[in-house]
């Protein structure tokens, strides 16, 4: 068991390192994050002003925190639906992965989490700093939201990876999954609260969003980290995240077994 865990740890580190080689890509990502961030500041600040300085509990300072935290998380939370494992399923290399003494789903998710965690360094932290320096934002002054927030961010990133893994498993049956991936990309960003916080949604749309795992990838970590949710609410949100992680993980596990059987029937 200990040897097994060490393997997954190494995969996590490998994913982290792999990403560190793309420095220019990280800089490009940061520039894109910042550009979208300033555009979001313009339109969302105008909305708060038009509503009289206060909108569903957001003032400009807390809206700024939402904007820059969401831009910071964008490089790490997979809202585009692409993953390396999807390519391996498409070209059949997945058959080799099944022969290895490793859980295919576990290995894939852990590698992707490693990559995502790296992105926090060149993209996440600088995006938030840009917001602090150029726009200003309200952040909590006690340590607890940061501790819970860190946990919530890691959970959010992992839920992103387990959900994208589900998209990839569609490939066992569909071969070409780009359509599903694009569909995921469109729906996930909107419902995760990427452009507009979900508390500004009309009630029916908010209920719809909360019935999906998407808010737990980005909106909940932001609410916890920015102190918008108090301690009790934060614990509830983290609890919800654990639920979504378990659910997406379990569904991914059964889809993997079913896909493996399909491969074996086909003699792949």
């Amino acid at each position, binding site marked *: 068991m200990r040897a097994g865990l060490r393997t997954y740890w190494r995969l996590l580190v490998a994913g982290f390192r792999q990403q560190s080689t*793309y420095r*220019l*890509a990280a*800089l*490009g*990502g940061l*520039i*894109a994050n*910042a*550009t*979208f961030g*300033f*555009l979001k*500041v*313009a*339109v*969302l*600040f*105008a*909305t708060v002003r*038009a*509503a009289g300085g206060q*909108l*569903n509990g957001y003032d400009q300072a807390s809206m700024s925190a939402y904007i820059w935290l969401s831009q910071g998380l964008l490089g790490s939370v997979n809202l585009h639906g692409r993953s390396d494992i999807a390519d391996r399923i498409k070209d059949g290399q997945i058959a080799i992965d099944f022969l290895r003494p490793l859980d295919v789903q576990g290995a894939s998710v852990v590698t992707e989490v490693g990559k995502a965690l790296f992105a926090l360094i060149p993209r996440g932290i600088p995006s938030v700093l840009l917001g602090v320096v150029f726009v200003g934002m309200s952040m909590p002054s006690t340590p607890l939201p940061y501790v819970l927030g860190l946990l919530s961010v890691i959970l959010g990133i992992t839920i992103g990876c387990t959900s994208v893994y589900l998209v990839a498993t569609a490939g066992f049956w*569909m*071969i*070409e*999954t*780009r*359509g*599903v991936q*694009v*569909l995921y990309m*469109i*729906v996930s960003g*909107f419902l995760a609260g990427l*452009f*507009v916080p979900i508390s*500004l*949604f*009309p009630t029916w*749309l908010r209920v719809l969003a909360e019935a999906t795992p998407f808010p737990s990838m980005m909106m909940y970590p932001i609410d916890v980290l920015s102190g918008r949710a108090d301690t009790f609410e934060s614990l509830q949100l983290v609890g919800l995240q654990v639920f979504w992680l378990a659910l997406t993980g379990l569904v991914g596990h059964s889809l993997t077994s079913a896909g493996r059987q399909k491969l074996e029937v086909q003699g792949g």
Partner: protein
Amino acid sequence: MVDLLTREAGGTTRGRLAPYTAVLASRMRAQRSYRANFRIDLGSSILIGFIELAEVWVLFHNVHSLGGVTFIQVLLVFGIADFCFSLADLAFGHCDNLPTYLRAGTLDVFYLRPQPLLLQLIASDISLKRLTRAAVGLTCIVIALIANDIDWSVAKVGLLALSVVSGIGVCSAMFVWAAGLQFFLINGAEMTNAFVYGGRYAATQPAAVWTRPLKVVFGFFFPMAFIAYLPVLQLLDLPGPEWLPSWLGWCTPVAAIWSWAMALIFWRWGVRHYRGGGG
């Protein structure tokens, strides 16, 4: 004799275009071959349009007007911008694949063929699903034109047509501009996404909400405000915000010329800079 001449002339044009049409037709057939995927593709491209509209609508659901315009007014901005971008994406969106070709070294193949590089790149794929995107934009334009109180005149009809054509020009130029930069960036495509897709997002916004630096960047340098926002101000007889007077709505062709000049300069630099993939 005349007949023979015209037929021959026609033959040569067709002959010259034949490689492009053959490639395009095969790409269209290829897209339809994975049927389930193709259907999902078409469905999701309509959904993209709706969700992008929903992102604008959700804000207006909370407040009556934003940057001096109401939802039904911004719908016209959104419609024109979305329509122009979708059509530009249909023709030039494939330039986005340049980084993949550069990394894999497969761009060298394009250099071997006796056709202009940019034309080959444009003709290497055409995404049918992008047509459904354009349909969403067009629907928004039609609804907004009916719902808004527009004091129609010949000049305004002309302005609308001029803006749409020039707007497609501006959006297309962004793709070529970005592609030209890829030769230098390699793997830094996200840097150009900032103005291609950030620009798309900017073009659908009421530019009155922008800060001064944003007005410089997306008002003039990448002239996204010219695609839809400024012409709509003219159409609806609305005053412009600071730095963006509404008469600029007539200047979208100037914005298109400026964008294409920059796009072609960067493209030429890029092509000259390229030293091959070592293939």
